[in-house]
């Protein structure tokens, strides 16, 4: 095995490039999910001159704007939570076409619909997106006319919906769904981009006869959660698709899902894990479970950052992944081998630590009939909003929230498609702090924090890194800002007028570099839950995309 690894390392001694160029073609920038642009026209020296050049109001103000815009050959594709899709001239903001998805059927029985949409995918002349009523839809990239539409599952039965941007992998479009807090068996589904026909499905929870099935008690596998509800990554050289999976359901109580004697071991596979699947067949190649027997709603459904770096003198193909607890794992993405882990939050009480081989120790678990306080909270040290990676600095950049919660654990029967958290959480702030979040730069190889920018409230927007050695993100007060990627010094800031919790991108048209960010605070779910912790806050709703560039004369 070791020999093979060495051999492989030699073959791929050249690091693969996950940077975007003129386009921003995929949700995570490229399929490597770096959220890093190779453009450097805007840099540490001139970012102070950055000005807004156009903006686009979606008119869809009820929720917010979380989507990552996709930019292909000078056209930007943007989606709103109520599923309006816009094609815009990326240089001017001029509307080229728009599409409105019909209002979905009424709410589903006892489940919970997340009215969000985090982006479209674009490939082969089509624009793809998922819907709140669980369809995957393809539009004509030139006209916005519907091409095909397929039901992934009936939300009235499964209690699930799609908020993630789909991932394009060769001739397929792969989409994950929500339902991790509902009694539902999570899965990823791949369809052919051309026809919409079914290609493969991978169930997070193995069925009878499959390896890992034995980690589920009785029939709990049928409704055990694990929904991979965000967007994965793809390594074309290895032909592997990487995805993070959601928490087991019920979230806060394991009575009905944990096999006797399994406490402290791998459990409820493959929930709260990172998995590698064969891109053509959807077959599992390897997995790494991050939170065995998850009892804190610590989804691991988030971005898999694929980067290559030398470890002990050998170039390795790595995967960096953080789950909601803020614990960040570094794995070999060829084999799934554990390489290292580090925890980004400063206040961590749910475990006492992680062993050298990645095992959680000193677990502080919710208990039925008691209130157990833990940090971070179920809203996450970080949730779906993505980190960024810069190959120039070698650092990953992530916003981390310092919020705790009181957990209750109340076992209840799982009913298909119904909310099945088996308890709840009440958020609270950790004592003796004046700031409750920070944007960090970490070296994932040395596992050291390089710099940290503290912030008084919380940070819920994704991060963008660029070859201009800049890091961009925004805060709920509406400031969208740029930091020096090496020092963390703030170099520029712009008040966008509404809270930021979207995902900024960079692209260029006709040789001019643009930075685009969605704005508008979320009025439901996580954003609304965190807001009452700060009585003096005034985080404003909205749904506007704002695009910045250097003044024409200065570029």
């Amino acid at each position: 095995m070791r020999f093979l690894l060495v051999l492989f390392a030699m073959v791929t001694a050249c690091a693969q490039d996950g940077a975007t160029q003129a386009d921003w073609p995929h949700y995570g920038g490229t399929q490597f999910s770096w959220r890093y642009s190779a453009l450097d026209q805007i840099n540490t020296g001139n970012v102070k001159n950055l000005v807004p050049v156009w903006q686009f109001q979606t008119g869809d103000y009820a929720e917010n704007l979380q989507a990552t815009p996709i930019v292909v050959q000078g056209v930007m594709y943007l989606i709103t939570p109520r599923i309006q899709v816009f094609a815009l001239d990326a240089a001017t903001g001029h509307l080229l076409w728009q599409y409105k998805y019909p209002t979905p059927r009424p709410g589903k029985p006892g489940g919970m619909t997340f009215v969000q949409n985090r982006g479209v995918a674009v490939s082969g002349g089509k624009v793809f997106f998922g819907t709140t009523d669980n369809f995957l839809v393809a539009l004509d990239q030139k006209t916005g006319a519907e091409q095909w539409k397929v039901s992934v599952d009936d939300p009235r039965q499964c209690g699930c919906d799609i908020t993630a941007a789909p991932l394009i992998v060769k001739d397929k479009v792969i989409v994950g769904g929500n339902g991790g807090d509902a009694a539902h068996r999570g899965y990823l589904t791949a369809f052919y981009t051309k026809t919409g026909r079914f290609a493969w499905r991978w169930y997070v929870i193995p069925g009878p006869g499959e390896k890992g099935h034995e980690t589920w008690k009785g029939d709990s596998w049928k409704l055990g959660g694990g929904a991979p509800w965000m967007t994965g990554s793809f390594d074309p050289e290895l032909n592997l698709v990487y995805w993070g999976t959601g928490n087991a359901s019920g979230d806060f109580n394991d009575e009905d899902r944990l096999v006797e004697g399994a406490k402290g071991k791998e459990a409820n596979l493959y929930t709260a894990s990172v998995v590698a699947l064969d891109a053509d067949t959807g077959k599992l190649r390897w997995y790494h479970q991050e939170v065995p027997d998850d009892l804190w709603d610590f989804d691991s459904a988030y971005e898999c950052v694929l980067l290559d770096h030398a470890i002990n003198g050998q170039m390795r193909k790595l995967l960096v992944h953080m789950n909601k607890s803020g614990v960040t794992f570094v794995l070999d993405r060829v084999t799934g081998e554990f390489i290292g882990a580090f925890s980004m939050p400063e206040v961590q009480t749910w475990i006492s630590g992680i062993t050298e081989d990645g095992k959680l120790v000193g677990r502080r678990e919710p208990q039925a009939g008691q209130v157990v306080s833990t940090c971070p909270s179920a809203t996450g040290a970080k949730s779906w909003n993505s980190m960024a990676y810069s190959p120039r600095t070698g650092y990953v950049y992530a916003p981390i929230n310092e919020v705790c919660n009181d957990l209750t654990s109340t076992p209840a029967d799982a009913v298909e498609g119904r909310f099945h958290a088996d308890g709840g959480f009440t958020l609270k702030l950790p004592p003796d702090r004046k700031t409750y979040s920070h944007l960090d730069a970490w070296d994932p190889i040395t596992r050291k924090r390089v710099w940290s920018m503290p912030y008084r409230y919380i940070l819920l927007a994704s991060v963008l890194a660029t070859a201009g050695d800049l890091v961009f993100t925004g805060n709920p007060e509406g400031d969208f800002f740029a930091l020096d990627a090496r020092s963390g010094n703030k170099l520029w800031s712009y008040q966008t007028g509404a809270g930021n919790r979207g995902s900024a991108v960079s692209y260029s048209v006709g040789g001019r570099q643009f930075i685009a960010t969605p704005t508008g605070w979320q009025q439901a779910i996580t954003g609304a839950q965190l807001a009452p912790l700060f009585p003096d806050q005034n985080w404003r709703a909205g749904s506007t995309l704002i695009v910045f560039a250097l003044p024409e004369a200065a570029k």
Partner: protein
Amino acid sequence: MKRAFLLLVIPVLGWSQSAGEKVFAQSCATGYCHGARGTPAGAPRLAGRGFDQAYITNTIMRGLSGTAMPAFGSSLSRADLTAVIGYVASLNGIANPVINLGPGGPGAAGSAGTALSAEGERGRALFFDAVRGFGRCSTCHEVNGIGISVTTPITKIPADAEALRALATPDIRTATFDGEAMPALIVSQAKTRALFYDLTSPPPVLRTVDPGALKLAEGSGWRHASVIGAYNDAELTSVLAYLREAIK
């Protein structure tokens, strides 16, 4: 097919504050949703909003389209619905709520209000069996509000498993589009666009094409038998028993 409305008007002497509070705590003040006793949390405040009874009942029964508020009408028991609706009414100063739950009843994928026989219940579970993925009946058929209504509602129920396999499907034609022939169920044909379900493999894909680029021929090689292979004869017999009880 329209079902007679069964209106249940309950003059609610029966709802108790404590029962309603309990249902509210279990189903509403949980996880990412409302706070305890109608305080704001992930979802908005419900206490003291001035909601009227009809709005409260309707919202709890049917949910709010386009929001995270689900429909509880088919997932909670009538007793629990009455209790929780009465409780939310009390939070809005309605002392003696008159609760009209309307038609429908418990059992999400369920019945027309009457209990199913043991075999009917077995058939119901099979019809909607998620373990069978796109091989389940509800991939193409909607019964009592669950399932994807690709075809027209089921009205005639075949006598047995053999008849179910041999079902005549004259509506399915052969579409040729983009150089490929495929079994197709036409949804609509207008001057500028044609919509059809591509039945090449489950699940059906609703495709929108330029009518000029579409050629249609009567008949197809598609057979109902080819998409119900996830079920054996005994299972299909139970499914048919369910349909006979559920579709009146």
